[in-house]
C-alpha cells in the first residue's frame, strides 16, 4: 500500500476497451501517470488486459515524409497536395479510430472525389451486401441478455475472439426474462471444428468445411416444411435427425439469436452465406422471434459502417468520382481497386493492408503515394509517402465508438498522448484539401482561407 501512495496513480472508472467489437464499457483502469502506463485493467478479459498493458507511447516522429521527420503542418500540406492531385484516390481502414475521425475521412473523400472503403470489406462486408439484399432482423445485446433463450453461434469462436460475449450478453448473465442465466438458455455452436467455444455450447454441430450454405438452405426448407434431399448428411456432414431437432428447437424457442462470424462471410459463398442465415432468421419469425447479428472484430468497425452509411447512404465501397456516392463492392472495394491497379493514391487510417492484403494489392501499394495514420509503425507506414503517428483511441483520446450491436459508446481516455488524434490530423487535411480543390476550380485561393471565403457570402 505504501508503494502505491508514492506513485502518481489515477483510477479511471467506466473506461471503455476498444480492442474488439464488444467495446466493454465497464473497465476500471489503474494508470501510472508518471510512467504513462496502465498497470491494471479490472474487468478486462485476457485480450483487453493485453490491449491496455501493452500500450506504450511510441518513440517516433509525429509526422514523416518519405521516412524523414517533418513538422505536422508540412506533412498535412504534402498529404493534401497528394490527395488533390490524384485521379483515383482511395481512403481505407477506419475501423480502429473514433467516429469523429471517420466522419472527417468521409468528408475528405467527398471533397477529393475519391473512394472510401473500410476494413468491413475484408471481414463482414459480405454481410453488408446481404443486409441490403435480404434485410436484417436485428436487436441490441441488452435485449439478448434479458430475453434470449436460444443462442446459435455460427462460424465464429467468441471464446477466443470475444471472451466476454458469453458473460456479458449471451450465455451466463441473468436478465429480466432469463433469471437463471445459463440454465434458461440453450447454446448451439455450428462450426467446422470443435473450437474452444464448444464447451460452452449445449449442442455442437460440425458442418463439413464450405458447406454452410447448403446446411442453411436445408434448414430454411425444413423450417418451411419442405422436403430436402435424402443425402443431406453426405452433403453437409449433419444428419437429418440433428437438423429436424434443431429446427424444432428454433421454432419453439421464445427468443432466438444467430451470432455469425467470418466462418460464413469469408468462405466460399460469402454474401450468400450471410444472406442465407439472415433469410433463415426472417423465415423463423413466422413461428417465434428470431434475430441475427454479425459478431464484429475491430473496436469501431461497426462505427465505420454507421458513419459511412450516415454520410453517404452506403456502408463501404463508396465512390465519389462523379461527385455523388455510388456503391459497388467488387468495383470500389480496396482489395479490388488495388489489385486491378486502379488507385493512384491511398489514405490509410488505422489499418495495415500491407500486412494482410493479397500480393497484387500490396505490390500496387508500393507503386503509389500512400498516406498513413497509425499509432505504431506498420508494414503500411513503412512504405508510406506521408506517415503520421497518432494517439490511441480509447486510451489516449476520447470520442465515440459503436458496439457490434450499433449502440454508440463514449470513450474515457486514461492519459494524454504527445501525438495528435486521428481526428485532428484528418480535420487539418480536410481543410487544406478543401482549399486546394476550391483553388483548382477557380473558386478560392490556394494560399489559405478558401473555406472562409466561400462560407462568408452564404451567411449573408
Amino acid at each position, binding site marked *: 500500500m505504501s508503494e502505491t501512495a508514492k506513485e502518481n496513480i489515477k483510477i479511471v472508472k467506466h473506461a471503455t476497451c476498444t480492442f474488439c467489437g464488444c467495446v466493454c464499457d465497464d473497465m476500471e483502469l489503474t494508470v501510472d501517470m508518471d510512467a504513462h502506463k496502465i498497470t491494471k485493467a479490472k474487468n478486462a478479459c485476457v485480450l483487453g488486459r493485453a490491449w491496455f498493458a501493452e500500450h506504450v507511447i511510441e518513440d517516433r516522429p509525429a509526422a514523416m515524409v518519405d521516412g524523414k521527420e517533418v513538422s505536422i503542418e508540412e506533412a498535412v500540406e504534402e498529404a493534401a497536395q497528394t490527395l488533390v492531385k*490524384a*485521379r*483515383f*484516390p482511395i481512403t481505407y481502414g477506419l475501423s480502429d479510430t473514433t467516429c469523429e475521425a471517420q466522419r472527417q475521412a468521409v468528408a475528405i473523400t467527398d471533397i*477529393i*472525389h*475519391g473512394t472510401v472503403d473500410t476494413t468491413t470489406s475484408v471481414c463482414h462486408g459480405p454481410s453488408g*451486401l446481404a443486409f*441490403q*439484399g435480404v434485410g436484417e432482423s436485428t436487436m441490441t445485446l441488452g435485449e439478448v441478455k434479458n430475453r434470449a433463450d436460444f443462442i446459435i453461434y455460427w462460424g465464429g469462436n467468441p471464446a477466443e475472439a470475444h471472451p466476454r460475449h458469453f458473460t456479458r450478453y449471451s450465455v451466463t448473465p441473468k436478465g429480466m426474462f432469463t433469471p437463471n442465466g445459463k440454465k434458461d438458455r440453450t447454446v448451439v455452436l455450428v462450426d467446422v471444428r470443435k473450437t474452444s467455444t464448444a464447451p460452452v455450447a449445449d449442442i455442437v454441430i460440425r458442418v463439413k468445411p464450405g458447406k454452410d*450454405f*447448403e446446411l442453411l*438452405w*436445408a434448414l*430454411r*426448407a425444413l423450417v*418451411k416444411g*419442405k*422436403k*430436402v*434431399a435424402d*443425402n*443431406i448428411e453426405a*452433403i*453437409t456432414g449433419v444428419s437429418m435427425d440433428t437438423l429436424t431437432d434443431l429446427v424444432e428447437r428454433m421454432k419453439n424457442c421464445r427468443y432466438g439469436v444467430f451470432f455469425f462470424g467470418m466462418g460464413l462471410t469469408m468462405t*466460399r*459463398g460469402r454474401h*450468400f452465406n450471410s444472406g442465407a442465415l439472415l*433469410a433463415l432468421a426472417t423465415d423463423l419469425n413466422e413461428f417465434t422471434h428470431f434475430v441475427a447479428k454479425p459478431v464484429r472484430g475491430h473496436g469501431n468497425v461497426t462505427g465505420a459502417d454507421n458513419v459511412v452509411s450516415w454520410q453517404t447512404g452506403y456502408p463501404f465501397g463508396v465512390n*465519389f*468520382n*462523379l461527385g455523388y456516392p455510388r*456503391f*459497388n*463492392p*467488387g*468495383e470500389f472495394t480496396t482489395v479490388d481497386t488495388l489489385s486491378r491497379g*486502379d*488507385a*493512384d493514391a491511398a489514405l490509410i487510417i488505422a489499418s495495415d493492408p500491407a500486412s494482410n492484403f493479397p500480393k497484387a494489392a500490396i505490390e500496387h501499394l508500393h507503386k503509389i503515394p500512400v498516406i498513413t495514420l497509425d499509432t505504431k509503425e506498420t508494414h503500411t507506414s513503412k512504405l508510406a509517402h506521408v506517415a503520421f503517428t497518432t494517439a490511441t483511441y480509447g486510451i489516449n483520446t476520447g470520442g465515440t465508438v459503436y458496439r457490434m450491436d450499433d449502440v454508440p459508446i463514449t470513450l474515457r481516455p486514461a492519459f494524454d498522448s504527445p501525438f495528435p488524434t486521428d481526428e485532428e490530423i484528418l480535420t487539418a487535411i480536410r481543410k487544406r484539401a478543401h482549399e486546394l480543390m476550391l483553388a483548382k476550380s477557380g473558386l478560392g485561393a490556394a494560399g489559405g482561407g478558401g473555406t472562409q471565403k466561400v462560407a462568408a457570402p452564404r451567411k449573408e
Partner: protein
Amino acid sequence: MSLKLTLHTSPDVPLEAPCLNPDTLAGMTADIVAAQKVMHGNQAASVGDFFKVAGKANGTLELEGDLSRVKYIGAGMQSGILNVTGNVGQHLGAGMSGGDIRVDGDAGDWVAPEMRGGRVTITGNAGHLVGGAPRGSAIGMLGGEIIIHGNVRNETGHAMRNGLIAVGGTSGDFTGVNMLAGTIIVLGDMGNRSGAGMQRGSIVSMNPAEMLPTFTHACVYRPEFLRLLLLHIRSAGLPVNDDHIEGAYDRWCGDVVEVNRGEILLLNGA
C-alpha cells in the same frame, strides 16, 4: 465508312465512357466525337485524349485497343452495331435495350447488367455477374441475348427475369442465383450452388453439376425447346454438338425454399 476509335493513350485509372455507343455518337463527325466528355477517374477528359478518331458515324462503331480500364462501353445502347477489338472493362452494355455488341477479347465484371434487349457477344472470357442485377436491385436482365464463348465467373444471370445467357466454357458459383425467369446455358462445368433461390427459369449444363439439397430430381426427357435454343446458339458459334441436341436431360426442380418452379437440366449420361 463507319466510325473507328483507336486507343492511343491507355488510361492510368478507370475511364468511364458511356458515350462510346453508336446512338450517342450518331451523325457526329470525327472532331465532335473527339470532344465528347469522358471521366478519367475523378477528372473530366475528352474522347480525343485517349482515342484516335476516324470516319463518320453511320450506326456502326468500331473500337480498338486494350480497353480493360474503360467502363460503361455501350451503356444504354438502343440500336446500331458496336464492334470492339481488344478487352473491355466493367459494365459493358449496362442497361442496353437494343443493338449488337461484339467484343473480340475478354470482358470485365457486370456484362450487360439490367439489359432489356439486343445482343452481346464476347469471344473471350467474362467476369462476375454477367446479365446480373446491380447491388441493391432485385432484378437483373429483362431480355436480349448474351453469348460468351469463353468462361464466366460467379453469379451469372443473378436475378435475371428474361432473356438468354449462353456460355461456351465454364461458369463459376451461384449460376442463376435468385433467378426469376429466363434461360442460362453453360456448355462446360458449372460451379456449385447453381440456381440457389431461383423462382422460375431454366439452367442447362452439358456436364454433371453439384445440386443443392433443395432441388429434387423430376425426370429424364428430351425438351423440345432446348433443341431450338441449342441450334440457335450453335449458329452463333458456340461448340454445341449433336449429342447435346439429340441427348436426354435430367430435370431437377427447385428451389424449394422459393416457389419450386425453376429447373436445372443436365445432359443425361454426360
